[in-house]
């Protein structure tokens, strides 16, 4: 982890007083970290970049909502996580036919979310297999695993970001890893 001379919280305080350079520094510090977080969550680089832009816009327009009682990164990941979850829900709704749209003569089934077609062509690619398995996890488990195993945040920070007790975070991360392992075993990922 990079150590900066000026803390995120100090930069945010400067930005709250109107220093746009402080805002730019925040953007440079977090744009790639947030993109990786959102990309793992959505599995779509373009939409992930839009979400990261939206996150920084929220920081800009709601700068006074931040109080220095929490770490700045916690606040930022919370915004990005909420936006990503909303986007995922919208995406799933767009890709799923509602049962009410199907007449009684039709076979009642839901069309699942389309998976990455390249996955079938390149099953040996570990990164893609893990990404596929991640997409199969429930959103809560997925968020926590990304924050812990990819973003390498502490359990305490994850607890604050997702708003659940520390014990629940620990147990969900453990269960999430076990689910991931089962999914990878099914497709021969290891």
């Amino acid at each position, binding site marked *: 982890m990079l150590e900066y001379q000026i803390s995120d919280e100090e930069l945010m305080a400067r930005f709250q007083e109107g220093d746009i350079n402080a805002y*730019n520094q925040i953007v440079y510090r977090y744009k790639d970290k947030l993109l990786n977080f959102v990309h793992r969550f959505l599995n779509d680089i373009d939409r992930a970049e839009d979400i990261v832009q939206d996150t920084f816009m929220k920081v800009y327009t709601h700068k006074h909502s931040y109080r220095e009682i929490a770490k700045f990164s916690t606040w930022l990941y919370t915004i990005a996580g909420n936006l990503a979850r909303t986007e995922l829900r919208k995406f799933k709704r767009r890709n799923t036919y509602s049962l009410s749209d199907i007449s009684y003569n039709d076979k009642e089934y839901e069309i699942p979310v389309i998976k990455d077609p390249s996955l079938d062509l390149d099953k040996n690619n570990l990164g893609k297999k893990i990404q596929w398995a991640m997409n199969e996890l429930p959103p809560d488990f997925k968020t926590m695993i990304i924050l812990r195993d990819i973003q390498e945040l502490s359990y305490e920070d994850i607890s604050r970001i997702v708003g659940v007790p520390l014990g629940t975070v620990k147990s969900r991360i453990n269960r999430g*890893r076990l689910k991931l392992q089962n999914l990878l075993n099914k497709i021969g990922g290891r």
Partner: protein
Amino acid sequence: MNCYNFEENISVFIESDLSLKLRKEFIQHRETCPGCEDKLNGIVSIINSFKQIESVATSTDFVKNLHQRIDKYNSRKEPLFTRLLNFQPFGLKPVAALGFVTAFTLLTISSFLLFQDDNIPKLNVSEFSQKPSTLSNQAPLMVNSQQVPAVKDSTRKDSLRDASSRFDDQILMVNQKENK
């Protein structure tokens, strides 16, 4: 330790957060249960795989696009409600100004109503002063208007009339005694 407990504690073991006693039991179980050992190795390899996944970077236009959005946001016309909220008459914030105006209006209305309600009795001195003048060479009836209790007009007139007639009777009695 059984297989269920082992599974529950895999992540805590990897994070080196397990107590010494549980750690010993965990290691003992791993050595005797090949299935659980496989699970542990599998999870360790998944965590290591995450580190090998290529990270992605934002596009070169990312910051430029963000600043365009910020410029657009800054140049937008504020909605009427927001403008009203930001309006500060005499440097007062809207809520404070509204409170001040409300208080001032209430004060004015209550003062007006208070002074409109005239229930203070009026003293008719001319009517009252006629009675004692009928008495000749007698000490005038000294009635100070301040001594008159503040009662309603009709009650006050009746009580004064009674008092003055009683006084006349007393004078007549004295005069009769003197004549005798």
